[in-house]
């Protein structure tokens, strides 16, 4: 596809349930990011991949959050034992590899709105 695709678009989970959120980045984009956006807030960084390597996972809120990108393209964000405070929009973004002096913009998907009840 032409842009970053995320699925599902909406997810309602019962507290304690595990969920998996999928991100299809733009073909050829080396960098992939996950962000969490609460209502009325700016996005908060969760984790960053360069190809299949997870270079930064400092933003993952707890060990219930796990992200992978095994083949360097599609990525999955998994949340185990969901809690109400996990309710948010989860945004995925991809970009070309960073090059000094170039405007390397990030392209975002529409996000997955997770509601934990």
């Amino acid at each position, binding site marked *: 596809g032409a842009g*970053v695709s995320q699925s599902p678009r909406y997810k309602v989970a019962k507290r304690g349930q595990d969920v998996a959120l999928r991100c299809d980045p733009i073909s050829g984009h080396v960098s992939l990011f996950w962000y969490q956006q609460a209502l009325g807030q*700016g*996005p908060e*960084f969760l984790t960053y991949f*360069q190809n299949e390597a997870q270079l930064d996972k400092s*933003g993952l809120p707890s060990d219930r959050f796990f992200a992978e990108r095994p083949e360097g393209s599609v990525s999955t964000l998994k949340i185990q034992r969901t809690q109400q405070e996990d309710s948010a929009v989860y945004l995925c973004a991809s970009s070309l*590899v960073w090059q000094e002096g170039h405007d390397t913009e*990030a*392209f975002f998907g529409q996000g997955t709105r997770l509601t934990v009840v």
Partner: protein
Amino acid sequence: SQKIEQNSEALNIQEGKTATLTCNYTNYSPAYLQWYRQDPGRGPVFLLLIRENEKEKRKERLKVTFDTTLKQSLFHITASQPADSATYLCALDDYNAGNNRKLIWGLGTSLAVNP
């Protein structure tokens, strides 16, 4: 603590006027600052990037300034149109030598352009 602040109040302006949005930051020394637009139910869309050694950057009706002494960026939309109504987010590009990148975001400013 590290912080990014944008206009806390929503901005309402008349069509044709210039909208000016503010982004202030503390305790960062970013090499790059980016502005994004976000519409309801959509992901952010990149607008402009400005580097620490650039004072000003323009793209069509958009202009961004970056003052690293004041730790402030201003984002201007000239000849505003109702279609410019959206939330505008500023983000610092936290890039380090290890090629490890992430964006640190402000809360965003809601802009409404009235016809």
